[in-house]
Structure formats: structure tokens, C-alpha cells
């Protein structure tokens, strides 16, 4: 507040006034004292006017605008999606408030809020920018998270399917897949909670595990396609097809790696079926109890219809054949198998399959409908080649 100086009342002023009274008194005009007083009043009013016109009020509305913009950016999750930009806005707003406080503390006519206004404007702009960026980034992260989760779901399903073919008993692969499954669940949960960065992180963790699985499975696959038994498998397949062509009969070729059985009629491919094989997966049967499916060239030696088999229909193979017995004897003489073990038997093509997993004790399983279909073509002596990998099957796709 500006105080007006008191009107002069001292003797000094009175003296000079008196002196001037004599010299400047005019008829009908004011006295010198009055003129002094008027002059002083005029000066005071002019000073007050200048002082008040020069003084500014704080730009509270502009500051509030900036503060509101920062709050809005915070509500728009700028702290999560655009933290640097939000921090800049907060910092500039802090400087604006400090500038306002400093200016407000000055004498009214010395206040200058231009810096405050400029800083508040800058803070608002930064806040609006951080809000916009946060919005854009949230949309992008949400899109990425949803796409990564969808991709992980597919990768996991595909990986489980391939594991069934290549490494059904590999505990490390199973562990990675279970971990990826948990990651997928966590990612889904975070998507529900709209924690998109969290969902993306979990989904990426799952995808990373699946890629590890892929590497393992790929190396398994390469192992089979360059397997030392490949020439034997090729010979077995060619022999089965040759006999089918010669006899004008059907022959079955079971591809263990692809879990696929191809039917050849008169040497030409007729149809293919998905099959379930032994728990031993790609292991080659050596002895009873190893749950592995044998490999070699066999013939059907007995046909059992509905009611004659526990597994709907069954075609009994002549396992163990001469070659299987020789392998068994070699293994026994080398001490590779326990004493008292025997080569086993009762290897069949039977029904109750279609489970999409390896579950038999060494047999090949199809669905009951498929067994009905192939039973029309089967007779005693039908050739069945069981191989680890059928190099002639180009239609399998891999």
C-alpha cells in the first residue's frame, strides 16, 4: 500500500507561504498556500495513478490453467507413458510458481509477471504435449501388447504341437512351455487390468521362452532329417510301395516323426491319416516295456473286429521280425538292456486314437472311424512300413 505524504503544516512551509502570499495574490484567484496544496495533491494523485497503473495482479488464471493441464496429463497416465515430458512440465510449473511468489513479494509498482506468464504458458504446453504423447504411446503399447499376446498364444499352441512330434519327453522343453503358459496368463490378466506395458513385458517373456523351445525342436528335427537310420527308413518305404505296386494291393507307411500314416494303393498314394504312437515318441522299440514304436517292414498277421479288441479294431503286426530280434540280441550281448528283458510283442494298428498325444505302449492308433475305413482294404499279409521319417512324403509340409 502506498501512503500519501501528509499535507505540509510545518512552520517552514507556513513561512514561505506567507512570503508568496504577498507576491502572488490576485483578485478573485487562489492564495499561494492553496496553489501549493493543489500542486501537491495533483502530484500525489499522479503518483498514485502511475503507481497503480504500473502494478500488476498475479496471473493466477494462467497458473491455474497450467496446473490443471499438468493434472489432466497425470490423469492421462503421462507419468507412465510420457514421464520425461511430464517431469519437464512439472519442473517448469514449479519455476512459474516460484516466479509468481517472488514477484508478488515485490512492491506493487515493481512487480513484473511476464516471466511467470511465459513459464506458466510453457508448462501448460509441455503438459498438453505429455498428455498427447501419453495417449499416443498408450494406444501403441496396447496394440503391441494385444498383438504380442495373440502371437504368444499361437506360438505356444504350435510349440506344443511340435513338441508332441519331436520331444514329447523332454523335461526342459516342457518346463519352458509351462513357463510360457504362465506368462500368457499373466499377460492376459494385465491386459484386463489395462496394464499394457506389464502385459507386453509378460508376453515378450513368454515369446522368448518359446523361441528357446523352437531352437531345441529345430535341432531335433534336423537330427531326424539327417538321421543315420535314414537310408534304412528310405529302403523300408520304397519296399512297401514296390510291393503295393507289384501286388496291386494297399500298403501302409507310418511316419513316426510326423505322426502320419500314408496309405498306398498299387504303388500310388491314396490317403493319409494322423496317428498316435508309443509313449517313447521317436525312440525305436528295442524291448518289452520301453513303450516305443518299432521301426521296420512288417506284415499284418491278424485282424480283430469290434468286440475282439480293447481298442475297437486291431491289426496285429508280426513284430518282432528277424531284424528286430537281431537288434535285441546285439543289445543284450552288449549289456545295453536289463537281464531278463525280451523283445516284447502285440504291436498293433488299433482304434481309440485321435488323442493328439503319444499314449500307446508302442502301437499305432487311429480314430475308430478311420479304423472302419481302412479295415475295408486290409487283409492278412498287408505290408506296413514303420519309419522314423518318411523322406518321400513331400505333402506333409515339413
Amino acid at each position: 500500500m502506498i501512503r500519501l505524504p501528509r499535507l505540509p503544516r510545518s512552520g517552514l512551509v507556513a513561512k514561505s507561504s506567507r512570503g508568496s502570499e504577498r507576491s502572488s495574490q490576485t483578485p478573485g484567484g487562489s492564495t499561494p498556500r492553496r496553489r501549493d496544496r493543489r500542486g501537491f495533491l495533483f502530484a500525489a494523485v499522479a503518483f498514485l495513478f502511475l503507481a497503480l497503473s504500473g502494478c500488476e495482479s498475479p496471473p493466477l488464471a494462467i497458473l491455474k490453467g497450467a496446473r490443471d493441464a499438468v493434472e489432466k496429463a497425470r490423469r492421462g497416465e503421462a507419468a507412465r507413458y510420457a514421464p520425461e515430458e511430464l517431469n519437464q512440465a512439472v519442473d517448469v510449473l514449479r519455476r512459474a510458481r516460484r516466479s509468481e511468489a517472488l514477484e508478488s513479494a515485490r512492491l506493487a509498482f515493481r512487480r513484473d509477471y511476464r516471466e511467470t506468464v511465459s513459464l506458466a504458458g510453457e508448462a501448460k504446453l509441455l503438459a498438453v504435449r505429455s498428455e498427447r504423447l501419453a495417449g499416443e504411446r498408450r494406444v501403441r503399447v496396447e496394440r503391441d501388447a494385444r498383438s504380442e499376446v495373440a502371437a504368444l498364444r499361437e506360438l505356444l499352441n504350435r510349440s506344443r504341437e511340435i513338441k508332441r512330434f519331436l520331444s514329447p519327453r523332454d523335461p526342459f522343453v516342457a518346463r519352458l512351455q509351462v513357463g510360457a503358459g504362465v506368462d500368457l496368463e499373466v499377460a492376459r490378466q494385465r491386459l484386463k487390468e489395462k496394464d499394457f506395458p506389464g502385459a507386453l513385458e509378460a508376453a515378450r517373456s513368454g515369446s522368448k521362452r518359446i523361441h528357446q523351445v523352437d531352437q531345441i525342436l529345430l535341432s531335433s528335427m534336423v537330427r531326424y532329417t539327417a538321421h543315420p537310420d535314414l537310408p534304412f527308413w528310405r529302403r523300408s518305404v520304397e519296399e512297401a510301395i514296390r510291393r503295393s505296386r507289384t501286388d496291386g494291393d494297399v500298403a501302409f507307411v507310418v511316419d513316426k516323426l510326423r505322426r502320419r500314416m500314408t496309405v498306398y494303393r498299387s504303388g500310388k498314394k491314396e490317403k493319409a491319416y494322423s496317428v498316435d504312437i508309443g509313449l517313447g515318441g521317436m525312440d525305436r522299440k528295442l524291448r518289452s516295456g520301453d513303450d516305443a514304436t518299432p521301426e521296420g517292414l512288417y506284415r499284418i498277421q491278424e485282424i480283430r473286429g469290434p468286440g475282439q479288441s480293447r481298442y475297437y479294431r486291431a491289426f496285429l503286426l508280426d513284430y518282432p521280425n528277424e531284424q528286430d530280434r537281431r537288434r535285441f540280441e546285439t543289445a543284450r550281448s552288449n549289456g545295453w538292456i536289463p537281464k531278463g528283458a525280451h523283445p516284447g510283442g502285440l504291436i498293433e494298428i488299433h482304434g481309440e486314437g485321435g488323442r493328439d498325444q503319444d499314449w500307446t505302449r508302442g502301437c499305432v492308433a487311429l480314430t475308430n472311424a478311420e479304423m472302419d475305413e481302412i479295415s475295408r482294404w486290409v487283409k492278412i499279409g498287408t505290408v506296413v512300413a514303420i519309419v522314423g521319417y518318411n523322406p518321400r512324403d513331400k505333402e506333409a509340409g515339413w
Partner: protein
Amino acid sequence: MKRSWFGLAVLVMALVTVVACGKPPQEDIDAAKAALEAAKTAQAEKWADTDYQTAESSLSAAQAEVDAQAQKWFKNYDKAKELMTTAKADAEKAAAAAVANKETARNEATTAIADATTAIEAATTALAGAPKGKDTKADLELFKQDLDGLAATLTEAQSAMGSEDYNAAKDKASSVKEKATSISDQIAQAAAKRAGGKK
């Protein structure tokens, strides 16, 4: 007369000295800053984000008031002192909220891990008692692999506890529990189906 003018001048100078040289409330400033630092140490930025922002804002406003008073001829730090006290209280509140929230998250994660461990144990027991045969052997083997995988994932959740990533630990443990429970249910259903078949 001279004497009275001199006395007045001394009085005015003394008054000006006393008023103009008012000191900032350094103790309060230090206390408020220390409280905010303590809140930061308590990870309030992570566990009590809103409270921490409020505290930071309060300290900033208090500091602005101190700076404003420092510019004045006639300083009055009463309001600054009051604001510093508020800032300190806000910082203490943020620190307390951080500790409480963190503790809650830790407890929830611990509970989730304990529940998941129990669920895995229950599934393992159920698996051991499951009927074995040619038809079930493959399924049982897959369940066993899954349980091994779940146990390994639970170890990851426990590691996350060690690095104070309680939310990740809780989420993983909850998922593990769900999957282990699902395995127990499937084994129970298979056993019930088998028992029903025998009738």
C-alpha cells in the same frame, strides 16, 4: 531536541535491522527436505506415487514462499514455516503410505506363493494316487511334466520376491496355482470317471 532525533533514528535502525534480517526457517526447511528424502528412500515414487507427488508439490510451494520472503525488505517467514511443516507432514505421509503399500503387496505375493505351493503339493499327491494304465499313462506323464514346469515357474516367482517385484511374483504365483488346481481337478475327474466305469 538533537538527542530525541538521535534516539528515534537508533530505534528505527534497530527496528529495520530486526525486521529486515529475519532468518529463513532453516530447521524447518531441512526437516521437510529430509522427510522427502526419506520418502524417496522408502520408494514412495513406486509404492505411493500420488502421495509422493503431493509432498514434492508442497515442498516446492514452501520453498517458493521462502524465496519470495528472501526478496522482501520486511521478511516474514511465518507462512513459509507453516508450509514447510505441511510439506514435511506430506512427505511423512507418503513415506508411511509407501511402507504400508509395499508391505501389503509383499503379503499378497507371499500368500499367493504359499497358495501355489500348496496347490502343487496337492496336485503331486493326486498324481501319485492316480489310477495307472495304458490309457492314462501318457496323460499322467504330461501332468508330471506340467507340475515340474509349474514348480520351476514358482521358483521364478520366489526370485521376484527377492528383487521386491511383488506384483510379478503375485501374478505368476496366482497363475501357477490356477494351473496346478486345474491338474488336480482333471486327475479327480479321471479317477471319478474310472470309478464310475467300474460300476
